[in-house]
């Protein structure tokens, strides 16, 4: 949000509780420079509104129907400022501190609100982008809890891919392609960060560019010198690197 003089900050409030939205609305009311362009009561609405209205600032609750706050953040990219608003979440708060993300703890007063708002404005001035949202989401996840679903976006449409339905993941530049039920969904995330969020007893990195769902692997065949291919239930063939083959063997020998 590069603001010209006199230009308003366009903001969206996302919270499923009407009373929680009301508090923020009231505090925002004291700031003529902020224009409230939408209020959303669930994650789907939030993604839709952000995509369509391109606001500068988002007040984002964590626990909501449809998509939680971190999933919303992953889907809307990082070219807007986000102030997380939550009541209590040990791991999330730790992640906010580590990643220098602005947040408000419910209940909060006008002073806290002003401070968070000012910090958000300063960060815009300094031009510091957020860390990649997936990294923040991973840091905020309670330990030993792996992803059980991945949210992806196509325009304003949001798809939920349960990890059990994931066949494999392929790295494509800054994106990962999630192959599920014959379709491929693109998501802006590195394959390494996705790898660390998936349960290692179910998903294995078999190649620099591929993670496979182990349940889908039918057989592994030699391909060329030092390399193999993994054949999946639906006939897909994926390259297996030498290191990937060693990991696969270690897994099968267990």
């Amino acid at each position, binding site marked *: 949000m590069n603001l010209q003089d006199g230009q308003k900050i366009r903001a969206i409030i996302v919270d499923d509780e009407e009373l*929680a939205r009301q508090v923020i609305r009231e505090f925002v009311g004291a700031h003529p420079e902020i224009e409230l362009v939408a209020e959303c009561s669930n994650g789907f609405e939030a993604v839709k509104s952000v995509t369509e209205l391109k606001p500068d600032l988002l007040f984002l609750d964590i626990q909501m129907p449809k998509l939680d706050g971190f999933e919303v953040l992953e889907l809307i990219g990082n070219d807007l400022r986000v102030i997380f608003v939550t009541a209590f979440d040990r791991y999330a708060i730790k992640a906010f501190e580590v990643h220098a993300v602005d947040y408000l703890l*419910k209940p909060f007063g006008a002073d806290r609100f002003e401070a968070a708002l000012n910090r958000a404005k300063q960060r815009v001035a300094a031009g510091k982008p957020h860390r990649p949202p997936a990294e923040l989401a991973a840091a905020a996840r309670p330990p030993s809890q792996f992803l059980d679903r991945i949210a992806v976006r196509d325009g304003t449409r949001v798809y939920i891919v349960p990890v059990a339905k994931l066949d494999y993941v392929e790295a494509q530049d800054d994106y990962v392609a999630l192959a599920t039920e014959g379709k491929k969904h693109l998501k802006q995330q590195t394959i390494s960060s996705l790898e660390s969020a998936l349960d290692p007893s179910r998903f294995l990195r078999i190649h620099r560019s591929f993670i496979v769902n182990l349940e889908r692997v039918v057989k592994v065949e030699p391909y060329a010198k030092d390399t193999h291919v993994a054949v999946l239930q639906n006939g897909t063939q994926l390259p297996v690197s030498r290191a990937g083959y060693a990991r696969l063997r270690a897994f099968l020998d267990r």
Partner: protein
Amino acid sequence: MHPIFSNLRRLGLYLLSWIPIAGMLAYLLTIPGQLSMREAAILSIPLSLIYAFICLSSWYSCRGNPLEKYGLGRLIATHVTAALIASVVWGFAAAGMASSLSKMPSFPELNTRFRPAIPVIVGSGILLYLLSVTFFYIVIAVDLSRDAEARVMQASVLARDAELKALKAQVNPHFLFNSLNSISALTTSDSAKAREMCILLGDFLRRTLGLGEKTAIPLEEELSLIHAFLAVEKVRFGARIQMEENIDKSALDAPVPPLLLQPLVENAVVHGIANLVEGGWIRLSIQSQENGDISIVVENTLDPEAPARRRNGVGLANVRQRLQARYGSRASFAVKAGAEAYTVTLTFPAERKLQTT
């Protein structure tokens, strides 16, 4: 470790208990009429000492043949055989002692005069050995029951710990802070409602307060705790919460562990209602069954595609644990996650009288 040898004091007591036996033996030795009282006493003291140690060995055969493991026939055969062997050995020792004494001038022909007393030695040897077998079986049984008692004590301490932990975990900070935030919102828009919310929250917190010291409360009290909890949540979620109740009033005086049901209702709100944009219902059914059990069902709508909740099911595990701790196998606990509803069913025996409050 041998229970007598392991402790000097016990060994002393054991040997002391053989002094009257030695006296009795001396008396028995004079019965055939060939030995003087003095000779019988001189023989019986070392003989009793020897046999006292022989009898200690019966502990090993008691340990090796536990009463609950083998039939009576085998036990009798084993111990009687051992008794025969022990007493025959003892008899030989006695005869040897008598013949060596007879070489001394003060005990003329003791070996021939002793011979009629040998059956007395063997007979009392068998009896004494079998007595020691009985004694050691009693020692073993006492030890076992002491162990069992210790285990029961430990189990109840663990159960109590689990209960306390559950209670401490109860007033969920997420619930508390969200409720305070609702009050904060209402102070400017609807101050009367804000005050009402303060009162509702206070009412709920007060009810949960002294529950830590109680082992059981009437089901009715638990139900009103749930009502106080839902009254607060209704302010937060508005029309998104719909509560349906089907309650058999005759079950309400039964004692239950405190906070048995409230966590289930809280889960229904957190995992059900809070994930549904349009809200949903919670159904609570409490029924007395014909066999005297109480059956409770907590059911709620859910969004099968809801995001994973950032709080794991500690509440559910705690309820199951406390139910087990109090009722053991007489209670059952079942969870069914259907496509659109989540159902928790528990049954437990109704204990009519509330002993502790």
